[in-house]
């Protein structure tokens, strides 16, 4: 009996070692900026760096914009498709999964060619336009997570009955959408939002190739030029990821009838950010 448990236990223990060692090493490394003692010097340097604050704020704003725009795009679409065009649902689902098939670097390559300053939609002609294009790109990257979250949320509530009830009380479409449907899928939208936040905050490829002052390119720059600060930044990034996932768990467990939706979203991973 004990022997049969020993092997699984050893497997999990070795796995845990592989996964905790880099975290311990990174933390230790981030503390050893000053020779001979452990200190939070690297963190102080990072937090004092105005570019850290600027790029971090830029990425947070971009993430929030992505979440708002993504929710505004996905919630009405998922609602409308379920209500009126159930036969189109497989197609919509397929489109939302495409960003997992098309590598982000290919996507941004297409943007740069299609929306350059001499094209019909010259997004990259101005800084504001490029920022907008960046957020649009992030909305695309977050589509698989956002749509799946919202669509599972919609499956758990009876949107048809809710809609008819609201209509018979005289509610109009926007009222139904924002006052009836949205509050009912709020947990689903939030869990999509936390994953989106985790994706966008450290995203590198889009921001770098569109030349935006985001957190990802800043990380790359620090990695190329400094020794200890990158370790501190990695710890910070890991803490942000942990926070997002913890909030995802909390929100997911509160959602009625959807205890597994948060976990199934984990499966998709943060592929877009790589």
């Amino acid at each position, binding site marked *: 009996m004990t022997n049969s*448990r020993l*092997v*699984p*236990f050893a*497997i*999990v223990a070795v*796995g845990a070692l*592989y996964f905790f060692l*880099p975290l*311990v*090493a*990174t933390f*230790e490394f*981030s503390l050893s900026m000053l020779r001979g003692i452990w200190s939070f010097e690297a963190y102080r340097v990072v937090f004092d760096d105005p570019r850290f604050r600027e790029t971090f704020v830029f990425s947070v704003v971009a993430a929030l914009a992505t979440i708002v725009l993504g929710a505004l*795009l996905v919630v009405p679409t998922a609602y409308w498709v379920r209500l*009126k065009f159930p036969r*189109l649902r497989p197609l*919509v689902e397929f*489109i939302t999964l495409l960003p997992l098939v*098309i*590598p*982000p*670097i*290919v*996507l941004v*390559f*297409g*943007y*740069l*060619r*299609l929306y350059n300053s001499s094209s019909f*939609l010259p997004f990259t002609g101005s800084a504001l336009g490029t920022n907008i294009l960046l957020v649009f790109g992030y*909305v*695309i990257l977050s589509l698989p997570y956002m749509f799946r979250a919202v669509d599972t949320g919609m499956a758990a509530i009876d949107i048809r009955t809710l809609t008819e009830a609201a*209509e018979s009380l005289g509610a109009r*479409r926007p009222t139904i959408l924002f006052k009836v449907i949205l509050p009912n899928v709020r947990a689903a939208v939030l869990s999509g939002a936390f*994953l989106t936040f*985790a994706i966008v905050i*450290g*995203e*590198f*490829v889009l921001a770098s*190739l569109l030349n935006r002052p985001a957190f*990802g390119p800043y*990380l*790359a720059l620090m*990695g*190329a030029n400094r020794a200890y600060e*990158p370790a501190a*930044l*990695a710890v910070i*990034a890991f803490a942000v*990821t942990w926070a997002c*996932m913890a909030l995802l768990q909390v929100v997911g467990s509160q959602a009625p009838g959807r205890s597994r939706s948060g*976990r199934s979203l*984990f*499966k998709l*991973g*943060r592929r877009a950010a*790589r």
Partner: protein
Amino acid sequence: MASIVDAGTTGSRTAPAAGQPRRRPPRSLAWLGIVPFFAFALLFLIGPTVYLIFGAFQTPSGALTFDNIIGLFTPQIMAAYSISIQVSLASAAFGALVGFFIAYAIVHGGLPGAIRPTVVTFAGVASNFAGIPLAFAFLATLGRLGLVTLFLKDTFGINIYTLGFNLLSFWGLTITYLYFQIPLMVLIITPALDGLKKEWSEASEILGASRWQYWRMVGLPVLAPSILGCFLLLFANSFGAIATAYALTGSSLNIVPILLYAQIRGDVLYNPNLGYALAFGMIVITGCSNVLYLWLRARAERWRQ
């Protein structure tokens, strides 16, 4: 009367009066509701991709050509594809193998009840901890001044760098990728292992099968589509990855996404349309493995009723 109620619920504000002959309009404007989504997807997902695919078959002046595709078969680009595929294969294979054993250990290993949720939650975080910070973490662990490197050198006198290990190499990149590949495997294979019914192993035991026979003739055939499907997903997952590799190796390891990144930045291939072909090749490879994954997943679902 019924027709008016119907028209009202299907969203038309100009319902025809009951006496008039019924016209089609009631539904005619409903399609407007899905236009934003399809327009957005067309402009920012499908359009740019299709543009690149067409570009791969065109000369700079716009004429049809296969030269770009043929141009992919030069030593430099083939070497990039080859090393990309090797890294993806290695990290997917090891990720699938190790992930499978960890998942098996937490599902059927008889470990204390708290282990499984802990491992699954941590896997969720680890599979999302990627990109540039992951490269930093491994530099701090296995880099020349990394914790493990120094520990092995100071304690056992083993210098892994003089033994030929280098984090900025094929194996270094593979080990780093495993950090998100293994957790991803654990997350996607756990449901399949849950579907492995206890009755099957009990039945085969009663019929006199050994553990090995059970696995060879029942367990693995049932799980094979899931395992292979997960392997393909892991493969596509690391094939498109760039940020980790870029931060880890700079441009010293010539994988396809890094070559494409350099091409976008500075046209290092001296032919913009060859860049389109490079992107086209990436789409073909990730597309094929994803399509196969979906097909295998559909097959695997059969055992999960």
